[in-house]
């Protein structure tokens, strides 16, 4: 399951999509809009994407994860448009027989998403200003 949506993300539904009789472990990652801009507080993030390419890259991530960790199932839903502080921007659910694979594949998917998938966010601050964000240096990343 790959989805780019303007609607709030239903995390329960994302988890449901990776349920399998063989799954003993599910790991879920949620990105959430934090309230801490550098100067003023963050009011919202606004996401735009190059839709066909973003969908294709997400499909590639899903297949690559399935080859690297045989037996895992994954679901990735990314929010688009304006996302207010406190709401979920991305949900990645991975199920596997054992937890090692579920954690590893989940972490790999969000790391790859953040460097490969053509999605961009603009930060809107409570003081009315806005700026485009690019990925912060390693270790600073959300």
């Amino acid at each position, binding site marked *: 399951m790959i989805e780019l949506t303007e609607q709030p993300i239903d995390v329960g539904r994302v988890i449901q999509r990776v349920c399998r009789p063989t799954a003993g472990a599910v790991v879920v990652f949620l*990105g959430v809009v934090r309230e801490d801009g550098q100067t003023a507080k963050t009011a919202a993030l606004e*996401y*735009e994407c*190059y839709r066909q390419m973003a969908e*294709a890259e997400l499909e590639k991530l899903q297949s690559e994860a399935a080859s690297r960790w045989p037996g895992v199932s994954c679901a990735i839903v990314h929010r688009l448009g304006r996302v207010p502080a406190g709401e979920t921007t991305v949900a990645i659910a991975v199920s596997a027989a054992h937890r090692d694979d579920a954690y590893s594949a989940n972490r790999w998917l969000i790391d790859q998403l953040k*460097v490969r998938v053509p999605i961009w966010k603009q930060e809107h601050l409570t003081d009315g200003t806005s700026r*485009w964000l*690019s990925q912060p240096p390693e270790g600073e990343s959300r």
Partner: protein
Amino acid sequence: MNVRLRLFAVMRTTLGRSHVELELPDGATVAQLRSKLAEDYPALSPLLPTCLFAINGNYARDEQTIPSDSEVACIPPVSGG
């Protein structure tokens, strides 16, 4: 050939347009596209070194040639998640 280049995010808002048309020699490479874009739109020039380009939805290297009628996009540093 005429290339219609899609712009996103900071590239789009800097220019206030979601695409530009560029006139390039047939069989031009991504590197030539990059130079032409900087030349025609100097406002984008400082942003270009960190941009990638995509041809028909796949990331393309600088030496790759651009087939005519392909969809070409400029991809500034992504920030999904």
